[in-house]
């Protein structure tokens, strides 16, 4: 009892804290990397990769401003978004398979922590009563509701193979059985998850992150009423969510490099491996973005239904080949 407690204090807690700091810095950097790749593909030089971090720092030093009719929801939502995302990052297996509270890092817990953040964002969009905010909130919730079944079923496919829905346990058992990774069930779940993550993070075929004041925008419409430090928090929350989802895909499908033996060296290797894997995913997603135009809103159910069928297939093949 005491030995496991000291192990938690000496290893798991610092590792979880490191994960949160790492994703808070790395999420914006991933956004910057994706913007840079897009700029290069379009023949521009583009902003430096650290630009989103600089934007957040600039916004944090600005004055707090609220719309006249805003209630307490507007200033509270960024804190809820950030807190829910940070807790999810803290307990998820990102750089180590033994994070603090790892036993409660069930996949459903992570999904619903992220969903708490989405709901807080949607409420804030509705709060000021502007047309854009309400429209953005309604669209974000629609996409969320369509993406969620695909996400959950895809993850069920992974848990069938591992025999548990605990994320650190799934990652450890994938490390122990490397031949699972190339199985058809995993590949189908990967395709479904990539589509869901593109939808959840509002990247291109679903939402255009580069627009302001367009009728087609989703996430930007929802946060239109934010300014200053609160906008910084919402942006940081979005970036951390992207960082967490990319890291989860990286570790669920390519777990190599993650620290599994509780040593400091393993942790450092884990940090480097995570940075490398998420950068590769960011490059892949921005390549998809470069080659696709935004889908019409009414075509989105088609895309997400495809993701859902892929995940159903993943579950069936997983059950049959078990």
């Amino acid at each position: 009892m005491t030995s496991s407690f000291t192990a938690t204090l000496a290893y798991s807690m610092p590792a979880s804290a490191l994960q949160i700091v790492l994703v808070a810095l790395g999420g914006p950097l991933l956004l910057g990397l994706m913007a840079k790749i897009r700029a290069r593909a379009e023949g521009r030089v583009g902003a430096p990769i650290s630009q989103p971090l600089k934007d957040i720092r600039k916004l944090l030093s600005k004055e707090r401003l609220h719309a006249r009719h805003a209630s307490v929801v507007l200033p509270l939502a960024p804190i809820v978004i950030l807190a829910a995302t940070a807790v999810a990052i803290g307990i998820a297996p990102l750089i180590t398979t033994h994070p603090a509270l790892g036993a409660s890092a069930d996949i459903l817990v992570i999904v619903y922590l992220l969903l708490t953040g989405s709901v807080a964002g949607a409420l804030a969009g509705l709060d000021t009563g502007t047309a854009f905010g309400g429209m953005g909130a309604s669209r974000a919730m629609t996409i969320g509701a369509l993406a969620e079944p695909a996400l959950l079923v895809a993850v069920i496919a992974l848990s069938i193979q591992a025999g548990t829905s605990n994320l650190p346990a799934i990652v450890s058992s994938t490390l122990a059985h490397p031949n699972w990774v190339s199985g058809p069930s995993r590949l189908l779940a990967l395709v479904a998850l990539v589509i869901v993550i593109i939808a959840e993070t509002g990247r291109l075929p679903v939402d255009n992150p580069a627009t302001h004041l367009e009728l087609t925008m989703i996430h930007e419409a929802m946060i239109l009423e934010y300014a200053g430090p609160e906008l910084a928090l919402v942006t940081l929350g979005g970036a951390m969510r992207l960082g967490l989802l990319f890291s989860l895909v990286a570790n669920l499908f390519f777990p190599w490099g993650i620290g599994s033996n509780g040593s400091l060296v393993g942790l450092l290797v884990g940090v480097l491996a995570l940075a490398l894997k998420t950068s590769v995913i960011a490059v892949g997603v921005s390549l998809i973005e470069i080659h696709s135009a935004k889908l019409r809103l009414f075509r989105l159910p088609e895309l997400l239904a495809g993701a859902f069928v892929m995940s159903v297939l993943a579950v069936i093949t997983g059950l049959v080949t078990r």
Partner: protein
Amino acid sequence: MNAATYTGALELAAGAVLVSAVMTLWRRQVRTIVTMLSLQGISLAAVALILAAHEHDGALALTGLLVLIVKGVIVPGLLRRIARLDPRSRETTPLVNVPASLVFAAVLIVLSYVVSARVTSVAPSVATRMVPIGVATVLVGYFMLVTRRRAVSKVVGLILVDNGIALVTFLLTSGVPLIVELGSSLDVLLVVVVLQFLVINMGEQLRRSELDQMKELHD
């Protein structure tokens, strides 16, 4: 070939057959659909070749090569030419919309697993475990035949049915005699060639290729 590689390769190839069947329902662009069909032909040939390598069966390997050439290259190539003749390149108005047909496809796939459980339980092996995939491909093909309006899409549905039947025969009986496979492959090829003339004639007379419009050709 050791047992683990054999199982893994067979699962991957059979899985690719089913995924490409679902993709044909998912995408609207006729060119993408035809690409998926050629991917399916290639995966089907891969199943035959893997089985042939595992069972040291020369005739099956020959059948696999035949499937690769006819269903992987020639038929998709012809369909691509037909698609180019057609002025509009999308399946615009299927009778059942795309999200609903994808969900229906999921139901069909589950159904085929339930139905073929009895067949596979007679002689459980790595190959027979994949039989539901063939049945599912047949069902998805029929669904496409029924719900899509364009002539090209209907032929794609027909070829899905044929591919599914071929997959089941490969998995259950290690392939029918070469002469039968030759006959059925050439049959499909002939259907595609006939379709090409049909689309050309319809294009000249109607400027479109929805088969529903054929009613106006009466009198």
